[in-house]
């Protein structure tokens, strides 16, 4: 019977299938893609590390560490030593400079994966006698050819070849500049490593097959006394990147829930319309003796079948999305991802799709209870849409809400996050619903328009039984998601780029040695860059004790949390409170006290995380020397400002004698010429100093943000698509009525132009209200993210605020008018006959 019932009116149910398919497709696409990505990373893990295990440290390895690693040599292990750091490369005439990522090596690198070089000769051969191998981007930037020389540090090097591929290179999107490979011995002779250099030292080990990597890793870890040295097996290669990708995956999975909820709304809409058409059938079945339960069962079986079919369709769509995603994600990926079928992802998609569809069928199916058998005798009864009683509806809503929280919890992997997300979506839907209803009420109250097309178009939106509100809410939600992403992104970028005041510094210099401070000032003066410059001392330190607890003995909830406390901090000393800082607890010290006391001022959010209060003890470890301080104040820091800021500022007394380098911010003379001149002058005089051009950094940040936002926008596109499916469904639901009205208008003498105009006005109105409401809701969310979470002042780009509603209106008109062109073309005779 369920099958027989579907046979008629199946076109309406097409939208049921599509609604579910879009959400399931998004979910399956992402799940399959990330499973394949994880698989690829796991398979390529050795390549991503270029070794079986690695030791890393920000300090040169001490003899003890080297000995512990060398102990495995007898078992057949091989070792290579690497030092990675940002550095400056320049033409030998000093006219052009470029920030590079320098990788200096000694030994047999890489143990796994392929290093593709041009010419294809052994790396050691190319690096011999002061040779370097570089990425082509550097040559293009410096206008240098292979065979010519490039200056790095205090020496010049011959470019011996090009680097085409490097196995353990983090995805290009995250890099600071082109890669340069050189021999480790040359780094030392060029004076590239000084006190202030940010060097990552690595020891790579390749083990013979008979040694167990995990066992050697934990044995080495236990043997090393130096806490600054981290030991990691290939299975944990590239932890930062993997954490980033995992977070992205979790976020995107959760984001598909918006699409699924919208799909659910589409399902509810289809079933409601379908049941309205089937009221007679329901009434007849009841007259023939079927109970409400039996009739409901017939339709539940139908919903289940359709849900399965729709989810199946979604699997196909997911396969398609999976093929497209690598292109969208592009440079963020460290490995190549193959679009293989992932059974677990497909099963999950099927299950989630069916559950979502059934949850959203619940409420409309309750209407079966309200169908009176008598209505086959009395037609006027059928005109009133049946509604279930209040108690049943409340119950259904509770089941729906609970089910959605369950689904969200499953997708997010946390009940708490799931509940928050469902609450957020429900709140957004509520706001959109209220705003749409208000918008429609406003339209209803407007004085009747003079033009017939306007009156008819707007009348169609506000008439009883219009699905405008439902469409506005669903389209609005999609628009809200897009608006939020767009506004947060532009807010972030405006903060770093456009909003910088004209006198803000545009250069960061790091690695200035203490005896270079005065010459550096003189150089700035000669370059006309002295005004507004700031020089701050920097000392590298780790936390040793926090409020009486040893950091080494502290327990952390996650690896990322552990890293945020155990990492190396750049700390400074200052007599005066730096600009952009505000003391929120305790007091700032006087210059006299700074020379006498060992005090520290801690940044607000870190103080909260460390549960630190004024008066408590904080002990730093500065290259093995413990420095005890007392927390004297807590500061709020405006991180948005283009200047060097610090988590910890100490008194001069506390850091007296610590190994110090200096960092500077300065503003060059205006224009690219001024920037190039300042950079070149500094590199020529002080080759150990790294100059970072803010414009270049902003460009790279922009490119990265664009990529990430592109991925998110791609997923948000799915929710807009779901909204459009609902729009199309609502058009289909009213098609019969529209054919009839178009025929009457034509009979009365209306041309197709008049009908088209009124349709265009109707859908423009619909899209404009949905777009405006969605943009406003999205702007509200963006405001919350920017000001409450990120602390960035809110400003709305007028282009986005006005453009989105207009684009939405355009899209809606396109879909609406496009879908109804057939109606306008239909011959009106059928109406005359009363058919």
């Amino acid at each position, binding site marked *: 019977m369920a099958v027989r019932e579907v046979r008629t009116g199946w076109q309406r149910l097409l939208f049921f299938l599509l609604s579910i398919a879009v959400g399931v497709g998004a979910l399956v696409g992402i799940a399959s893609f990330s499973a394949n990505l994880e698989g690829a990373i796991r398979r390529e893990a050795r390549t991503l590390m270029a070794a079986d295990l690695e030791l890393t440290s920000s300090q040169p390895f001490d003899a003890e560490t080297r000995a512990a690693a060398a102990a495995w040599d007898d078992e057949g292990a091989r070792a290579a030593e690497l030092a990675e750091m940002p550095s400056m490369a320049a033409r030998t005439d000093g006219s052009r400079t470029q920030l590079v990522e320098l990788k200096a090596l000694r030994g047999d690198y890489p143990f796994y994966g392929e290093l593709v070089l041009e010419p294809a000769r052994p790396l050691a051969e190319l690096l011999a006698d002061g040779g370097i191998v570089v990425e082509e981007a550097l040559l293009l930037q410096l206008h240098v050819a292979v065979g010519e020389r490039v200056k790095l540090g205090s020496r010049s090097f011959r470019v011996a070849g090009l680097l085409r591929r490097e196995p353990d290179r983090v995805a290009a999107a995250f890099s600071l500049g082109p890669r340069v490979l050189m021999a480790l011995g040359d780094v030392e002779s060029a004076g590239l490593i000084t006190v202030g250099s940010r060097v990552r030292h690595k020891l790579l080990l390749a083990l013979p097959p008979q040694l167990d990597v995990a066992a050697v890793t934990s044995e080495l870890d236990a043997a090393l006394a130096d806490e600054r040295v981290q030991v990691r097996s290939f299975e944990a290669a590239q932890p930062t990147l993997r954490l980033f990708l995992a977070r992205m995956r979790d976020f995107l999975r959760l984001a598909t829930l918006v699409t699924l909820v919208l799909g659910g709304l589409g399902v509810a809409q289809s079933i409601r319309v379908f049941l309205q058409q089937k009221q007679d059938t329901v009434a007849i079945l009841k007259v023939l003796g079927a109970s409400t339960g039996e009739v409901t069962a017939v339709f539940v079986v139908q919903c289940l079948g359709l849900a399965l079919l729709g989810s199946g369709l979604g699997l196909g769509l997911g396969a398609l999305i999976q093929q497209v995603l690598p292109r969208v994600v592009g440079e963020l990926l460290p490995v190549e991802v193959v679009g293989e079928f992932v059974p677990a992802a497909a099963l999950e998609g099927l299950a989630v799709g069916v559950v979502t569809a059934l949850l959203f069928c619940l409420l409309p199916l309750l209407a079966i209870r309200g169908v009176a058998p008598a209505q086959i005798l009395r037609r006027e009864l059928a005109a009133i849409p049946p509604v279930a009683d209040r108690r049943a509806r409340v119950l259904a809503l509770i089941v729906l809400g609970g089910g959605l929280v369950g689904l969200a919890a499953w997708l997010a992997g946390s009940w708490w996050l799931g509940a928050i997300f469902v609450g957020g979506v429900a709140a957004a839907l509520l706001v959109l619903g209220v705003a749409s209803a208000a918008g429609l009420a406003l339209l209803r109250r407007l004085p009747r328009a003079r033009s017939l097309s306007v009156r008819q178009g707007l009348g169609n939106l506000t008439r009883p039984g219009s699905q405008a509100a439902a469409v506005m809410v669903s389209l609005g939600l999609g628009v809200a998601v897009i608006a939020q992403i767009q506004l947060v992104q532009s807010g972030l970028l405006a903060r770093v780029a456009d909003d910088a005041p004209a006198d803000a510094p545009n250069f960061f210099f790091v690695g200035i040695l203490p005896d270079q401070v005065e010459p550096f000032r003189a150089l700035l003066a000669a370059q006309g860059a002295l005004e507004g410059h700031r020089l701050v001392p920097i000392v590298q330190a780790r936390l040793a004790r926090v409020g009486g607890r040893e950091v080494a003995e502290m327990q952390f909830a996650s690896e990322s949390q552990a890293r945020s406390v155990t990492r190396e901090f750049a700390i400074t000393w200052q007599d005066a409170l730096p600009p952009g800082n505000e003391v929120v607890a305790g007091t700032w010290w006087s210059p006299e006290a700074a020379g006498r006391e060992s005090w520290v001022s801690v940044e607000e959010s870190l103080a909260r995380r460390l549960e630190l209060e004024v008066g408590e003890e904080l002990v730093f470890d500065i290259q093995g020397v413990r420095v005890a301080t007392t927390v004297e104040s807590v500061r709020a820091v405006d991180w948005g400002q283009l200047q060097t800021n610090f988590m910890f500022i100490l008194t001069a007394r506390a850091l007296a004698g610590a190994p110090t380098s200096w960092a500077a911010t300065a503003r060059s003379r205006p224009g690219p010429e001024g920037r190039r001149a300042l950079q070149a002058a500094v590199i020529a005089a002080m080759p150990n100093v790294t100059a970072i051009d803010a414009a270049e950094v902003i460009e790279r940040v922009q490119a990265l943000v664009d990529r990430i936002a592109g991925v998110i926008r791609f997923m948000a596109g799915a929710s807009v698509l779901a909204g459009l499916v609902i729009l199309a469904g609502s058009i289909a639901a009213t098609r019969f009525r529209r054919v009839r009205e178009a025929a009457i208008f034509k009979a009365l003498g209306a*041309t197709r132009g008049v009908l088209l105009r009124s349709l265009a006005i109707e859908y423009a109105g619909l899209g404009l209200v949905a777009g405006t409401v969605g943009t406003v809701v999205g702007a509200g969310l963006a405001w919350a993210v920017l000001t409450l979470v990120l602390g960035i002042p809110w400003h709305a780009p007028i282009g986005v605020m006005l453009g989105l509603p207009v684009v939405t209106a355009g899209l809606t008109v396109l879909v609406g008018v496009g879908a109804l062109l057939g109606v306008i073309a239909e011959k009106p005779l059928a109406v005359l*006959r009363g058919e």
Partner: protein
Amino acid sequence: MIEIVGLTKTLYSGGHPLQILHGIDLLVPAGEFVAIMGPSGSGKSTLLGLIAGLDTPTSGSVKLAGQELVGLGEDALARLRGRTLGFVFQSFHLIPTLTAEENVAVPLELRGDRDARPRARALLATVGLAERGHHLPGQLSGGEQQRVALARAFVAEPPILLADEPTGNLDSATGERVLALLADLRARTGTTMVLVTHDAGLAARADRVVTLKDGRIDSDRRAG
């Protein structure tokens, strides 16, 4: 006023031709009231639809006020209808989103008439619905809706009025009232009228009764 020569209409149902009209010839002079009768399926409504240019004939010609319909495009037909035709349907067919007054004004507005609203209001008063002008069709009774439809059919003072079972959906008392109104409006305007009906009593009021049978004119006689 209406000239029909050799009009045929063939439909294809399941691949088989089904001839609805077999060469109808009919001349309706200006000011005449013609009733078209015949059993269900005899082709009455199809004929009315072809006269109105709502469908295209398979062959033959239809002229309204001297203008040939066959060969005209969709929009030209619509404009012609707006100028020359008024319609009354069995199921009223008011636009549900427009008020009674707006419904009546539609034909005038489509012509771009500036005083559409006052004229619509005046005609609503004539059909006894002066107080109901701001109501939507859903808020009116069947008889009231048909009176609005009558006002709409006459508002543009069309030379020809086509009516398809105008009282078919009304009880007899209401139907009688609507008919009286129709007769009254026609008398005032001298409109040519073609009315399709099953009701012999209604046909008896016409100047002439044309009876269709199986798509052919079975009889064509003067009434009275």
